[in-house]
């Protein structure tokens, strides 16, 4: 090991303290959401729950988990997220790669075109009619297809490809590989970090999608998770309800919290797995090895 001066130790320690503090600040609100989800509805209504659950109960979770339609949505979303992410990575890489090549003559003009799609947003009605006209209305494919290319992600990938060491590529080129082979068996395997990053970006958008199913799916059986859980927690009604008093421990707010936590868990679980691709020097190391 290399020496570490005292200054450096202090430096690293200070960083650790700051990051630790920030982590706590980042997590506190989630903690409060979690405690609300485990508290009884009436304490929550009295605004008494802060960081720890009060009048602890599993009722909100029980109610949510017992709903079969939730699980259907959950697995539907899981599958569309997986397929969508893979497809998106493929399409994005296949466009980002030529865009990073200077021999691709229309690359410059295409980039302007890509940036335009980022800055200018299509109005909702024409967008709806267009997507509908290609047959994606009331079609589960609408949960995937509109998400397979995102200009922002495309540009990020292109930036990475552009920084790819040219010598390595040229060497492979000499060996007679075509562009397709170059991309798939050479460039992509060495771009795990950016692939992991974009997998996360695409995955999260697919997982959290709300607008598309709202506008394009009418059959509630095909509702993905986010829109399904909205069904549990819609606006309060001014209208008094004449029903018998509910002997349950959940209410709108505890349910909302439970659903929020429920929907976050998978995303939280995924990140540490992707993180291993961010290891320093992953790319260069593998070339040499």
């Amino acid at each position, binding site marked *: 090991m*290399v020496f570490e*001066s005292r200054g*450096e130790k202090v430096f690293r320690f200070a*960083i*650790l303290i700051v*990051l630790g503090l920030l*982590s*706590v*600040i*980042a*997590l506190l*609100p989630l903690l409060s*959401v979690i405690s609300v989800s485990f508290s009884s509805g009436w304490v929550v209504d009295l605004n008494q729950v*802060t960081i720890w659950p009060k009048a602890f109960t599993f009722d909100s979770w029980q109610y949510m988990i017992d709903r079969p339609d939730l699980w259907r949505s959950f697995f539907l979303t899981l599958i569309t997220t997986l397929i969508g992410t893979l497809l998106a990575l493929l*399409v994005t890489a*296949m*466009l980002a*790669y030529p865009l990073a*090549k*200077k*021999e*691709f*003559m*229309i*690359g*410059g003009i*295409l*980039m302007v*075109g*890509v*940036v335009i*799609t980022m800055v200018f*947003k*299509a*109005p909702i*009605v*024409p967008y709806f009619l*267009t997507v509908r006209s290609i047959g994606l209305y009331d079609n589960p494919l609408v949960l995937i297809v509109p998400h*397979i*290319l995102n*200009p922002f992600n*495309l*540009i990020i990938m292109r930036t990475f490809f552009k*920084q790819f060491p040219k010598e390595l590529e040229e060497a492979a080129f000499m060996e007679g590989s075509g562009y*397709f082979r170059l991309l798939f068996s050479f460039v992509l395997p060495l771009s795990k*970090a*950016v692939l*992991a*990053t974009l997998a*996360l*970006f695409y995955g999260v958008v697919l997982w959290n999608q709300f607008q598309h199913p709202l506008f394009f799916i009418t059959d509630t059986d095909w509702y993905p998770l986010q829109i399904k859980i909205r069904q549990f927690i819609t606006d309060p009604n001014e209208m008094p309800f004449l029903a018998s008093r509910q002997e349950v421990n959940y209410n709108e707010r505890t349910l909302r919290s439970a659903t929020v936590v429920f929907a976050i868990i998978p*995303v*939280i679980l995924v*990140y*540490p797995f992707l993180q291993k*691709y961010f*290891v*320093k*020097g992953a790319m*260069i190391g593998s070339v040499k090895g």
Partner: protein
Amino acid sequence: MTQGQTPTVGQLKQIIRKRLRSGRLVAGLLHNMRKYWPLYAMALPGIAFLVIFKYVPLLGSVIALQDYSVFRGLQDSPWVGFKHFETLFRYPDFQRVLVNTLLLGALKTILAFPIPVMLALMINEVRHALVKKGIQTALYIPHFLSWVIVGGIVFDVFAISGLFNIVIGWFGYDPVLVMQDSRFFRAVYVITGIWRDAGWGTIVYMAAISAIDPQLYESAMMDGASKWKQMLYVTLPLLMPTILILFLLDIGNFMELGFDHVFNLLTPMTYSVGDILDTYVFRTGIQQAQYSFATAVGLFQSVIGFILVHTFNRMSRKISDGGLW
């Protein structure tokens, strides 16, 4: 105009200009296509996607020049020229809304943009793998709370019996209702934005850092560079292209402050500093289904955004190697 140093675009443009002059652009393109056809084939699905899902609907922006009615459709809705743009500019509070939008946009760009870079550099210094993972995960979690939820939490934190007032109470201060005081709105906007999205923003940088050749650090250490110096003279410069690109992308959405972000923090008492173009459009355009008007305002924002990207892109190409195109 174009610097000779910018290899991709610069050279291309020169080639194009030359070809144009000799009237051989099409032939040149065809030649290029024949020679590098796999690149074109590869790009095809992506291009088709952009055309279908972005450009065709984008053509629908012409409804900004119509009194669009969903019942009549694009063909039969009457054309009204720039009426909706006039409505926007004549709005009595237009100045206030525009100033608020620009100010919040500037604050967002200046204060919030650098944070993920700093965080990424700091996280990079953490040695212990598990601690590193923990910190990263913790920091990026807030991104998954929607603004409705975050808004609710923020209002709770600043309530009379909320955390904020409890803490300032320890120091002997009277409770302050921050959310109904226009002096604090901008700070709340920026801080909540950082709180929710800074951790998420580090991910790209972490990926970029991981692509840095370890040999560079080794040689820097040989030269006796401290950690701090390595961060400053190795990591940061190598991150620059990524930072630059992200900055350009960010600036393109300068006018987009996140409707949900602002809307969920806004109260009538903070309109004077927090009412922005997006919230104005929501009140007048979206709630009333005035699609033409909403589109007109959207175009106005996009045009400004595009001018900004274009300007900064040219600047960045002058001072450095990179740029979007």
